[in-house]
C-alpha cells in the first residue's frame, strides 16, 4: 500500500472553510489527504497547535484564512501573517522541513484555489516523505 500524507488543515470559518466547502460542492478533485479543523480566524492558530499536530503524527500542516482586507474580524489575518512569517523563519532555522508547514489565503469563492493548494501541498509532502523528524514516539529518544 502506498503511503498517503496526512495533513492537518486549520481553516478559518469565514473564508477558507467555505472555500473548502465550495470545492466539495463543485466536485473539484483534490487528494483526500487533509483533515480539517475549523477555527474562527487564522489568527486563532498558535504555533503550539501547529507543532502539536506534527508531534502527533501529521505529515504537514496548512493554515488558511481570508485574503487581506476580507477578514471577518477586520484585521485578524494581518496579525496572523506577521506571526506565521516569524514562525516559519524559526522552524527553518532549526532544520524543520519548511514545506511541512504552509500558509494560504483562500476566500469563500475560491474552491478551485483550495483544491490547488491541497494538491500542491500533498505533492510537496509526498516528495518529502513521512514526517519522522518531528513526530513523537513513546519512549523514543531522550
Amino acid at each position: 500500500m502506498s503511503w498517503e500524507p496526512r495533513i492537518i488543515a486549520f481553516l478559518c470559518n469565514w473564508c477558507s472553510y467555505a472555500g473548502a466547502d465550495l470545492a466539495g460542492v463543485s466536485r473539484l478533485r483534490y487528494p483526500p489527504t487533509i483533515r480539517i479543523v475549523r477555527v474562527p480566524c487564522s489568527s486563532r492558530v498558535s504555533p503550539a497547535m501547529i507543532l502539536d499536530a506534527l508531534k502527533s503524527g501529521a505529515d504537514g500542516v496548512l493554515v488558511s484564512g481570508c485574503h487581506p482586507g476580507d477578514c471577518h474580524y477586520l484585521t485578524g489575518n494581518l496579525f496572523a501573517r506577521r506571526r506565521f512569517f516569524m514562525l516559519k523563519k524559526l522552524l527553518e532555522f532549526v532544520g524543520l522541513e519548511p514545506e511541512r508547514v504552509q500558509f494560504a489565503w483562500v476566500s469563500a469563492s475560491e474552491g478551485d484555489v483550495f483544491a490547488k493548494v491541497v494538491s500542491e501541498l500533498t505533492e510537496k509532502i509526498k516528495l518529502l516523505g513521512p514526517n519522522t523528524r518531528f513526530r513523537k514516539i513513546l519512549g523514543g529518544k531522550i
Partner: protein
Amino acid sequence: MFYFLPREALKNWLSEISKVHEVFVPVSPSGFGPYEGKLYLEKKTKLSAKEFFLPWREVILKFEARPGALPSPVFFEPVKERIIFGVRPCDAKGLTLIEKVFGEDPFFQKRREKTILLGLLCKEPGRECFGWAMGVNPFAGEGLDALFLEQAEGYLVKLLSPKGEKLFKDQEAFEKVGEEAQNSFKKAEKEFLEKHPKAPALEKLKEADLLKLYEADFWEGLALPCLNCGICTFLCPTCYCFDVQDEVVGLEGERVRLPEACMFELYSRHASGHNPRRSPVARFRNRFMHKFKYFLDEYGEPLCVGCGRCNEECPAGINLWEVIRAMSTL
C-alpha cells in the same frame, strides 16, 4: 579487603567487564554514559549517578489508550547486571539518603539491586564541596560496593559489600594487597577527617524550633534572587521528588515517573487552582526546610551531601551555605 589496579590497566579492565556487564562511566564533565572508551575522571560530573536510580523517565505502566483498558506493569529489567564506575562517594551517600524514603519503593529497589556501584574518591575537594560538613565521610563509601582511591601508580580498591566482593573475586587485572596498602588508605582517611570536621550548624538546626525557622524573616531576602528554576533540584544527588505523567501517542500509552522540582509553581498547585505555596519565597523556603529541618528531624541527617553542585550551577548566585548559616544562627 583491598585490591590494587595499575593506572594503565583501568581502561582495559572496563572494556573487559563491558563484555559481561552493562558499564556506565563519567564520559564528560556533564555526566555519565555507557563506557565506549571515553572516561572523564578529573572532577565530579554535573549530573550525578542519581539518574540511574530515579531516571528521567521511569515507565511504570503500559496501556492501550482507550477507556476501560487494563494496564500492564513495567519493571526495570536490564539484560546484564549494571556497573557504574566513577561514582563519587558523596553521590553514593545521597542514594542512601534517598533509600531512607524509598526503601520500599519497588522501582528504586529494583535498580539498586541490579546495579554495582564502584566509587572513586576525589583527589581534592572541589571549590564548592562541603560534604564533610554535612557529616559525609567519603572514605566510608556508604552506598558503594567498592571504593577506588587514586594513588601514584594506580588505584587502591576497598571492597565494601558482598556484591563488590563477588565482582572482584575473579578479576585478573587486580592484585590483592596487604596490610601496608590498607594502612595507606586509613592514613588518607584520617588526614582527611582531621582537616574536614562536621559542621556544628547541624546540631543547631536539630534544636531549632520548626515554626520559628519557618517564620523567620531572612527568607524573603535570601529568596529574592532565586529564579525558582529546577537546576538545583535536578542536579542534586539527594532530591527525590517525582511527578507522574500519562503519555499517549496514538493508541499507545505509558504512565511514567520523572523527576520534579519543588521550585515549580505547578508542584503544589491543586486542580482547583489553589496553591498552598503560591509565592516564590514559599517554595524556596520549603526546599531548604525539607533538607535541613524536616528531613533532619526525621532521619537525623540532612538531605544534603555537600556536593556543591547547586552552588556551582545556580545562575542566580544563591549559596547553600548562606542559607544554612541563616537557618542555624536564628
